[in-house]
């Protein structure tokens, strides 16, 4: 009897510590979906570019073609919108199940710490475009996105940290393969998201669902 009470106390302590400092309702499935959207986006972008983007000069010349650039922006915006909306819906559903508030102190802290490196990176990429150093945009987005994940990992499921490090690594590697930015993008935003999202889904979401049935 006594033993059980102590056990309950310990699990309550652990539960409160993690719930008050980390946002744990982040859905793994939303990562998978973001990856799928990214792959579709990369495929569309590849079609728009017509396979031109294999050399640095081609990337540069494409930039002058306003119509192509507009289409690329449209694809990028569409992918982002789909990923964010799906992420919010799936996370909302998961937070309802786990009884965690979607928009509380921990999720606000998570979003803020994720956005700081990400917005800095976004502005930095705009500056790169301003100075016509467009070929460094793909590596820069990967590196800054990775840093944003590493930074955010302290406020949510810790596994995101390793995904972030992987992003930084391929971002840096891609600096040595200028012109293949799209492929690195597809690898990072597509494949990494799918792999890590699936890992998180099986590690947390499945288990959580099982607990609820008890």
């Amino acid at each position, binding site marked *: 009897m*006594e*033993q059980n009470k*102590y*056990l309950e*106390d*310990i699990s*309550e*302590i*652990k*539960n*409160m*510590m993690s*719930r*008050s*400092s980390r946002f744990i309702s982040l859905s793994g499935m939303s990562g998978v979906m973001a990856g799928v959207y990214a792959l579709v986006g990369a495929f569309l972008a590849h079609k728009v570019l017509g396979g031109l983007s294999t050399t640095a000069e081609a990337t540069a010349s494409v930039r002058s073609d306003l119509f192509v650039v507009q289409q690329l922006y449209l694809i990028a915006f569409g992918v982002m919108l789909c990923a964010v909306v799906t992420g919010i819906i799936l996370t909302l559903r998961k937070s309802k199940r786990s009884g965690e*508030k979607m928009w*509380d*102190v921990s999720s606000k802290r998570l979003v803020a710490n994720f956005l700081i490196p990400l917005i800095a990176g976004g502005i930095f990429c705009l500056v790169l475009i301003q100075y016509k150093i467009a070929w460094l945009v793909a590596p820069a987005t990967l590196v800054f996105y990775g840093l944003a994940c590493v930074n955010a990992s302290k406020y949510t499921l810790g596994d995101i940290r390793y995904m972030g490090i992987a992003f930084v690594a391929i971002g840096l590697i891609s600096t040595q393969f200028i012109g293949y930015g799209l492929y690195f993008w597809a690898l990072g935003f597509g494949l990494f998201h799918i792999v890590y999202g699936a890992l998180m889904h099986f590690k947390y979401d499945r288990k959580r669902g099982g607990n609820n049935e008890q």
Partner: protein
Amino acid sequence: MSIINNINKAFDHRIRLGIMSILMVNDHADFNMLKELLSVTDGNLASHAKALEKEAFIKVEKQFIGRKPNTRYSATKLGKLEFKKHIEALEKLIGR
């Protein structure tokens, strides 16, 4: 029995345990945050917070954010130390 002595009566309640757990990993928490996390009523939370304050395990700061009064709680050094001892005692008791 020295282990039993480390089980602190002040923490022997779910809500007080919760308040301390939250304040161990957050520099501070305000009244509403505690209320939401622990899902308790105002009066209930206030009385348990008061009990911990009396023991000098937590510090209470009242301030104004704009015109709204805001009560902020943080764990004291003593509170953190005692809570750590309490957790260790619990773990030892389970271990047996």
